[in-house]
């Protein structure tokens, strides 16, 4: 929000009427879910927008600048989708508070853009009654005008405007038709604006049945003709929700998305890797001071670079989730997977985030925003990092290659190494589901019947909204997680490089000393101080342990395929310790990006702290048990 103050200050140099521009002018966009609110917001603001949280609540809102003709501009705030203004849920309370000017840090909006789905006007008009009662200048926007016309419906803008006593505009936000009416209103709304008394008086008691009756009357008086049912949606649903075909299409889609992410993500990473390494070396060549060069190149550049490597996968995943969500299929996927998820106390909307977590927990946790039930959402966030993310792969590959012989377990079908890898994936999944069950039957208990999901009609996703989504995701990932990673990267560099007397020898550095110091604590797991250092450096990101171990064992250019690193590890670690290490990595929350994103999504340190403690505790106990059992048998 402070940024927005900055923006308005910057435009104050232009010569508009001073009386109006002296303060920040805000217009609120509100509307029910699936009314096309975000599409309209994107239409109005383009790239001049940012996501922000209100103080003290998890509800997110977007702020954006709309340029008006003579160099003037107005801020629009995109509020959460709501069905009524009764301050019952957090979303509704936030909207209520903002509209009444009771939200801290945000002046009362001067006007309201109320966006409704014109194909379902009688139901959506229910929200108009409480909003119009507020007395703010309001433009009622009937969205999806193209859909309404195509399906043979009709809404009379002039009649409706008279009934409601406020301007009405027909708009197709996806195509941009009629959008100029919104700009005209914004232009006028900031000047003096008077509303005519409505022909249809607003209901006195504003409960839902009364508002619905009022809406029906308004629709009738303004000669609204409801459109025919969406034929294509029904046709598609008879395929996508077919008792046999539906789950089949669902599985095929899931497999295809993952195949593409793994098949395309890895080459993209391989393309980025030399660019990051090369640019690091290039920057390093300008720095003569050795300590400073080490900080910049091996501390910051490779630390932050390691995280940047995940960006292609995150963007690919966001793209596919975007297509699924915007097209309306995501609601069907949630429906199909609901029963299975319910067994573990979760619901259908948790499925896609958990699936995404196989690539990376960060976009998965961001994807939980589609879950409205707060307890279900937190439970999903808490278990997502237990799914086997791609950052665990290098560690698994290294340890498995070092300790498990490459021989077939079932000839021609299953190799011992593949079986070990599959076992680790299964271990993560089982831990996640068991944890979900535990959480949902204790601290996050909620009534099971709270799953109510609207099935929106199928729509073509637009390039603009997909593009904006990808930009938004990359911005969030780079800015928020990036700042934390930068700090941690510098911290870990300092630990491994300092004190100066260690001369870059990791064994005598602070990290080495910590490794020695925690050795008694990790000895029961079968780890020595070298693994201890690896555990510390991998706090930033799991795969860091591979390069750290490479440095400790003095292997040049150590990666997970390096035979000498495998050999060194094989000699230094017992089989029990090796399995314990795998188990530890399967459960521990060694990923600062995840901690940062959980903090952001839950608006506080409570849940990331609980999660970190739980996962580390689970990792320690299970690794201990694994080591004991194997040492006992071996």
């Amino acid at each position, binding site marked *: 929000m402070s940024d927005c103050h900055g923006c308005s200050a910057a435009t104050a140099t232009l010569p508009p009427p001073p009386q109006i521009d002296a303060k920040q002018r805000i217009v609120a966009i509100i509307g029910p879910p699936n009314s096309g609110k975000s599409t309209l917001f994107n239409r109005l603001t383009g790239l001049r927008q940012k996501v922000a949280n209100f103080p003290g609540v998890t509800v997110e809102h977007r702020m954006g600048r709309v340029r008006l003709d003579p160099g003037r501009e107005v801020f629009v705030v995109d509020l959460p989708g709501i*069905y*009524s203004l*009764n301050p*019952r849920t957090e979303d509704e309370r936030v909207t209520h508070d903002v509209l009444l000017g009771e939200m801290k840090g945000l002046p009362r909006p001067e006007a309201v853009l109320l966006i409704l789905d014109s*194909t*379902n006007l*009688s*139901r959506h008009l*229910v929200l108009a009654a409480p909003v119009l009662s507020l007395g703010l200048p309001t433009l009622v926007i009937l969205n999806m005008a193209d859909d309404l016309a195509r399906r043979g419906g009709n809404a009379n803008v002039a009649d409706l405007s008279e009934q409601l006593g406020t301007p009405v505009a027909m708009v197709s936000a996806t195509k941009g038709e009629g959008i100029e009416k919104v700009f005209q209103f914004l232009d006028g709304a900031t000047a003096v604006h008077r509303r005519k008394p409505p022909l249809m008086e607003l209901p006195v008691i504003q409960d*839902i*049945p009364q508002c*619905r009756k009022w809406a029906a009357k308004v629709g009738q008086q303004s000669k609204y003709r*409801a459109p025919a049912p969406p034929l294509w949606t029904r046709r598609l*649903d*008879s395929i996508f*929700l*077919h*008792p*046999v075909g*539906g*789950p089949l299409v669902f599985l095929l889609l899931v497999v295809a998305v993952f195949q593409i992410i793994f098949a395309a993500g890895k080459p993209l990473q391989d393309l980025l890797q030399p660019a990051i390494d090369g640019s690091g070396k290039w920057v390093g060549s300008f720095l003569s001071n050795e300590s400073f060069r080490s900080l910049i190149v091996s501390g910051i550049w490779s630390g932050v670079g390691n995280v940047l490597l995940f960006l292609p996968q995150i963007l690919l995943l966001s793209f596919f989730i975007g297509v699924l969500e915007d097209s309306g299929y995501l*609601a069907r996927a949630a*429906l*199909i997977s*609901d*029963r299975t998820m*319910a067994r573990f106390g979760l619901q*259908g909307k948790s499925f896609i985030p958990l699936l995404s977590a196989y690539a990376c927990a960060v976009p998965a946790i961001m994807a939980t925003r589609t879950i409205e039930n707060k307890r279900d959402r937190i439970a999903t966030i808490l278990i997502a990092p237990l799914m086997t993310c791609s950052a665990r792969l290098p560690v698994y590959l290294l340890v498995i290659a070092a300790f498990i012989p490459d021989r077939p377990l079932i000839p021609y079908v299953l190799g011992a190494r593949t079986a070990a890898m599959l076992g680790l994936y299964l271990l993560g999944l089982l831990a996640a589901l068991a944890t979900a069950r535990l959480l949902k039957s204790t601290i996050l208990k909620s*009534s*099971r*019947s*709270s*799953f*109510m*999901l*609207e*099935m929106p009609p199928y729509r073509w996703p637009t390039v603009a909204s997909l593009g904006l989504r990808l930009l938004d995701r990359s911005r969030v990932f780079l800015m928020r997680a990036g700042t934390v990673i930068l700090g941690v990267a510098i911290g870990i560099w300092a630990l491994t490089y300092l004190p100066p007397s260690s001369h870059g020898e990791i064994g005598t550095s602070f990290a080495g000393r910590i490794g020695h110091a925690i050795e008694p604590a990790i000895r029961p797991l079968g780890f020595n101080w070298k693994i201890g250092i690896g555990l510390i450096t991998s706090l930033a990101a799991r795969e860091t342990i591979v390069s750290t171990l490479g440095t400790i064992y003095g292997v040049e250019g150590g990666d997970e395929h390096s035979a000498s690193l495998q050999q060194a590890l094989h000699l230094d670690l017992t089989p029990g310790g090796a399995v314990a290490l795998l188990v530890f990595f399967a459960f521990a929350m060694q990923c600062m990006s995840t901690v940062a994103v959980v903090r952001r999504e839950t608006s506080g340190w409570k849940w990331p702290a609980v999660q970190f403690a739980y996962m580390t505790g689970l990792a320690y106990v299970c690794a201990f048990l694994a080591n004991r059992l194997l040492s006992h048998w071996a």
Partner: protein
Amino acid sequence: MQLAVASMTLQGTELAYLRIGFWGKMQTGVRKRVRDREHAAAHNLMELQRGEHGILDRIDLPEDDARRLMELGFLPGHTVTPAHSAPGGDPRVFRVDGTEIALRRETARKMILRQKASRVP
């Protein structure tokens, strides 16, 4: 005979119905099942078959859930038509007030219909 007199002396028809209900319970199991099928059939959303529809009477759920359902269009007097469902029949999609809403079985069971389901004309 005695029962008929007793019910006539009661003023509200509801009370009379209660008496008959009580009487019904005292009959054999077979008669009870017949009566249940006549009066309780298609009395909640779960019992609607494809091609049938019903008119919603009330929602027997805690206020928060009932409110949310009403916001989604499940208002008394509105026509509800069952549509597709997830594999296994749960959750199921219902058409109401120009939209489609998926509900779990235990929610749909608490939504009581006003009149017997009938074929869509």
